[in-house]
């Protein structure tokens, strides 16, 4: 390239940069209100999600509340080694994965099925009533839900034991038996959240063009065929995005419900990573050890969400980023 060409290229580059700066400036000038509205969220993120990350270093320190985060001495990966040698942690991790796996297996498809069912209901009154009924548990406090569950499964007056009593079966102490904890916990979670989670899928279904169905009707498709061949493929991007998010939260099991429902007799199947952290960290005062457990939890969740996103991107061209 000769000197003239280089000079023209430099000038072009300069013009492109200037144009870009001009465009960004114009955009900010035009949309500054939107950016102002973004500020509270950014502050919230910084204060509640980024600033606490400073405290993560206690996972690598021999933390003392008297010496503070900065003053406590470093101790490398000692807490992680202790964690990996802790049977209770692995039991909690296993329980978390099993319960999350079952929740995903049974709890993830149900909101989709519910949304598909609501979409097929033609009677508006019935639709509204049934939607309200299934959305309602989401708005009830976990404490009240736990109380309802404890009452329902009570061996003396619970409705479940009353019903099985009609068949001549002796009362079962459901909440003290480890083998019953997982079904009860997962069932409760589904009952509480499936309806509310179906809203997002209903919204996605509402976005499917009605002419696709009309075209299929003229082509001779049945309702069932339309669900399989039009509705589900059309909402697949939403399903996959929700699945990726769900996989990212797989270790974030609803631990308040665990804490409300479990007891030492059911720790074997009920104790999850978060309840383990709560017991060890908050109740036992081992902040550094549980910070290591929490960090480990977060790293696994990060790997899972990245892997799910990559798989989804590869096989369906749909991804979060």
């Amino acid at each position, binding site marked *: 390239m000769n000197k003239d060409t280089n000079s023209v290229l430099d000038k072009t580059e300069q013009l492109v940069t200037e144009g870009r700066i001009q465009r960004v400036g114009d955009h900010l000038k035009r949309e500054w209100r939107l950016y102002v509205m973004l500020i509270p969220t950014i502050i919230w993120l910084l204060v509640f999600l980024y600033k606490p990350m400073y405290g993560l270093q206690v996972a690598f320190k021999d933390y003392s509340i008297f010496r503070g985060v900065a003053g406590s001495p470093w101790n490398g990966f000692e807490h992680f080694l202790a964690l990996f040698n802790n049977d209770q942690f692995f039991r909690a991790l296993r329980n978390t994965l099993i319960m999350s796996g079952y929740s995903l297996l049974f709890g993830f498809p149900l909101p989709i099925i519910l949304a598909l069912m609501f979409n097929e209901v033609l009677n508006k009154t019935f639709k509204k009533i049934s939607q309200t009924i299934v959305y309602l548990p989401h708005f009830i406090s976990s404490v009240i839900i736990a109380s309802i569950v404890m009452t329902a499964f009570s061996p003396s007056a619970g409705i479940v034991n009353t019903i099985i009593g009609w068949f001549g079966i002796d009362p079962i102490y459901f909440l003290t038996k480890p083998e019953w904890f997982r079904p009860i916990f997962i069932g409760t979670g589904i009952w509480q959240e499936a309806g509310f989670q179906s809203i997002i899928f209903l919204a996605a279904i509402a976005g499917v063009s009605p002419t696709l169905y009309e075209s299929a*009707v*003229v*082509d001779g498709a049945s309702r069932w065929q339309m669900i399989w061949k039009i509705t589900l*493929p059309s909402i*697949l991007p939403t399903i996959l995005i929700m699945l990726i998010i769900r996989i990212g939260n797989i270790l974030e099991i609803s631990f308040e419900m665990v804490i409300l429902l479990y007891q030492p007799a059911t720790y074997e199947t009920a104790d999850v990573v978060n309840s383990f952290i709560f017991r060890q960290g908050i109740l036992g005062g081992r902040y550094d050890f549980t910070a290591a457990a929490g960090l480990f939890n977060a790293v696994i969740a990060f790997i899972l969400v990245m892997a799910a996103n990559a798989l989804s991107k590869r096989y369906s061209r749909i991804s979060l980023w």
Partner: protein
Amino acid sequence: MYGVKLEGIVKFYGAVKVVCEIDIDVQEKEFVVLVGPSGCGKTTTLRMIAGLEEITAGRLTINGRYMNNVAPKDRNVAMVFQNYALYPHLNVAKNMAFGLNIRKQPKEEIKLQIKEVSSMLGLTEYLDRRPSELSGGQRQRVAMGRAIVRQPSVFLFDEPLSNLDAKLRTQMRAEIKRLHKRLGATSIYVTHDQVEAMTLADRIVIMNDGRIEQVGTPMELFNSPANTFVASFLGAPPMNMVNAKVANGGDKLIAEFYGQKLSLPELPALQNSVGREIILGIRPELVRVADKTTPNQISVDVDLVETLGSEALVHATLGNKPFVIRTKTIGKYHSLDNLTGFTIDPNLISIFNAETGTALQGQAS
């Protein structure tokens, strides 16, 4: 009896009557266009034929079979929608095969039909693409291909070209016309575009407010409009409407308007009608522009001349009402000073009853 027959078809949405006892008889292999302004009931009529809307009253027969309560899939019709209605998750081949797969046709047969139709529509190289990877014209062709592979007895088109730009619309219009000639299938086409109606139709059905205003071949409707609505709907620019009064002009009748006079043709409907209010329908392209020297001209106040190359549109006023002239002699009259009015052969005027708007008689020629 083949074709599609609508007898006294009525459609109510709640208490609103949107289609009022219409009768249409579409012959086998005929291309009929339903045209009219938005909300005139043309799409509702088409959807009733497809089975997508319930028929409130009346009788629909397709190929001689009573169809009112027959499911859409059993009517043997295929529909091309305004927004194409292509399945975004399926490629072109699968979109075209959708209806055949639903009907569980043998895979080999489907393949063969897709191959044939895609080659007919120039879609062979796009079979693996998804709709989002196609242009508007290609999507439109896929939508038509999907209808063609079904080999239906009736094609229904619901404003299929309205989402395309002007140039592509002209191309696709010609393609649809060619396809109809080739396939020879009975087709019912809905549009609000009178150019599409004029160019595509064997017969046009003009609708307004849920009623049929007139049915006929494009030239019948253009030359002999049944009423002022049809007259002003067909033609671009539309027919000029001039309110006038019949007067005695000695040996023949004349029309008087805004202090000007125009000879009227000798029509039986005008006998003994001196003093009667009428509307003169004057097509913009049937007048001859005049300058100061032209005798017996109708004077107009010229407002604006739009030059379109081979012709020009003269926007004028006649008695404070707009009057448009379409002329090819603009070279001579491009100066507003020279253009003072027009002359017209009385036999080319349409005359309407001023009270009812119905034609007393259309153009004589």
